[in-house]
């Protein structure tokens, strides 16, 4: 099942996704409006709390608006990675194009990977819009940002979440709907991964659960590198944790996807949603 990805195939998938998404202009506009509305909402929530939240946010520069904006923006990578592989299969099933794709000599693993790239590019665009709006209108201060450590964390985050996303796609191949993994990791990460508040405010039992979520380490490190300008050395514990998650989940996800694909081809359910 080794993917046969070439630059030409990757670009073909990107072009396809760009053209399809560009044909839904209203959806793009509403997405931008929802980003703006989310930024404004959290700006006023931050204003309401003012310095009261500062004691819990000392490790992140003390400003709630910067904390939450980065949390919301970067947790988008988790949604993209967890959902993109599953969506790649279910959208092709819905379009009825999966048969035509499976019929071609391009491997399904290549289709899966190439179909997810657009989601990551679009998520990156959303992150830039979030940060740009925060900087332009609401005094978001990223003057100390360390770009290289942020990019390393971002790459590791995408890899570790993609492994979970592929694992999740295996469930979709077999059960079609009701993927427990996505529900478990996505739900728990949004609540306990430190998107809206630092995990230090959680009861100790819940804090322990958050240590098992890759998002916790991603947000911790990306906040430190963007707000405080932390170097790679300073965020090494988070980097190693994400490497550990990737090493644990990637082989498992590849094995489960191979098994699920074989089963779906055997029972003839690959092509139906």
């Amino acid at each position, binding site marked *: 099942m080794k993917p046969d990805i070439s630059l030409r*195939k990757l670009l073909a998938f990107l072009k*396809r996704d760009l053209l399809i998404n560009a044909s839904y202009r209203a959806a793009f506009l509403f997405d931008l409006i929802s980003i703006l509305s989310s930024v404004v909402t959290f700006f006023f929530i931050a204003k309401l709390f003012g310095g009261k939240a500062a004691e819990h946010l000392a490790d992140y520069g003390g400003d709630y608006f910067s904390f939450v904006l980065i949390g919301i923006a970067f947790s988008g990578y988790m949604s993209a990675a967890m959902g993109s592989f599953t969506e790649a299969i279910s959208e092709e099933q819905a379009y009825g194009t999966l048969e035509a794709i499976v019929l071609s*000599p*391009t491997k399904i693993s290549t289709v899966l990977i190439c179909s997810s790239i657009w989601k990551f590019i679009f998520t990156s665009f959303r992150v830039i819009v979030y940060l740009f709006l925060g900087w332009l209108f609401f005094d978001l201060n990223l003057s100390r940002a360390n770009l290289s450590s942020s990019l390393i964390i971002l790459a590791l985050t995408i890899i570790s979440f993609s492994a979970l996303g592929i694992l999740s796609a295996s469930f979709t191949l077999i059960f079609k709907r009701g993927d427990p993994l996505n529900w478990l990791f996505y739900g728990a990460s949004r609540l306990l991964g430190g998107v809206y508040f630092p995990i230090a405010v959680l009861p100790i039992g819940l804090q322990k659960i958050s240590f098992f979520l890759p998002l916790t380490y991603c947000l911790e490190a990306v906040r430190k590198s963007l707000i405080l300008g932390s170097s790679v050395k300073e965020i090494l514990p988070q980097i190693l944790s994400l490497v550990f998650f990737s090493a644990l989940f990637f082989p498992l996800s590849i094995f489960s996807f191979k098994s699920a694909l*074989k089963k779906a081809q055997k029972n003839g359910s*690959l092509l139906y949603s």
Partner: protein
Amino acid sequence: MNVLTQLWGSDKVKNMLEVHNISKRFFLPKPLFSPFQKNKEILALDQVSFKLNPGRILALLGPNGAGKTTLLKILSTLILPDQGTAKILGYDLITQSQSLKSRIGLVFSEEKGFYWRLSGRQNLEFFGILYNLSPARIKEKTRYLSNLLEIDDLDKPFQNYSSGMKQRLSLLRCLLSEPEIIFMDEPTSRLDPAGALNFRKFIKEKLVRELGKTVFFTTHQISEAESLADEIAIMDKGRIKAFGKPDEIKIKYGLNKDSTLEELYLKTINEENEA
């Protein structure tokens, strides 16, 4: 000399398609409130075997649920059989399916299978790349095949094409990769009588006689099988009941050569029921 001519002249591939004892069962889900009940199973294909020579047209006839589409999907590598195997162009269907994929084509019966928001050309460019064709080759072949298939406007969104044009685009996509054997699932089911007639003429005169392709299609229409096919397979309840040239099968079933294919079909299908 094209690949087919090379193969035809050699001993490498005597049969374009050799199917050996293919069986396939599907399991129906258990009723929600009967967890201890066994899964019901449907025997979709029951030890299907036959051979087809290059450059021939085979029509697979049969009632709904006979197993025609399942057989077509197995032979086009979309689903795996439970038992048996097949050799297509000398490639093993199960162990060499990846190499086989660029040499076979499937024309779908439904309007699905294309991205409706993209134009015909954009769809063809995308699928061409999945078949490892270069952009220049896709462009060149699209121009040639669109002329051949009389598709005039490739730049409008797929959703705006008529059913007939969608079917021609499906055939054009299939021909992009120069398959040597083409499977078609009820190719004229959505076409008006004139469109169906033209499509059949194209298959027989251009695809098979001129380009030397082998065609295997399923149909409900006996007249279509009669006008198009060199050989006929009649399938019912997952089994091939009759296979061969129409005249030969008629004699085998005790009919004379002047009998219609409809009489043969009914006799074949009803034989087991009467017994």
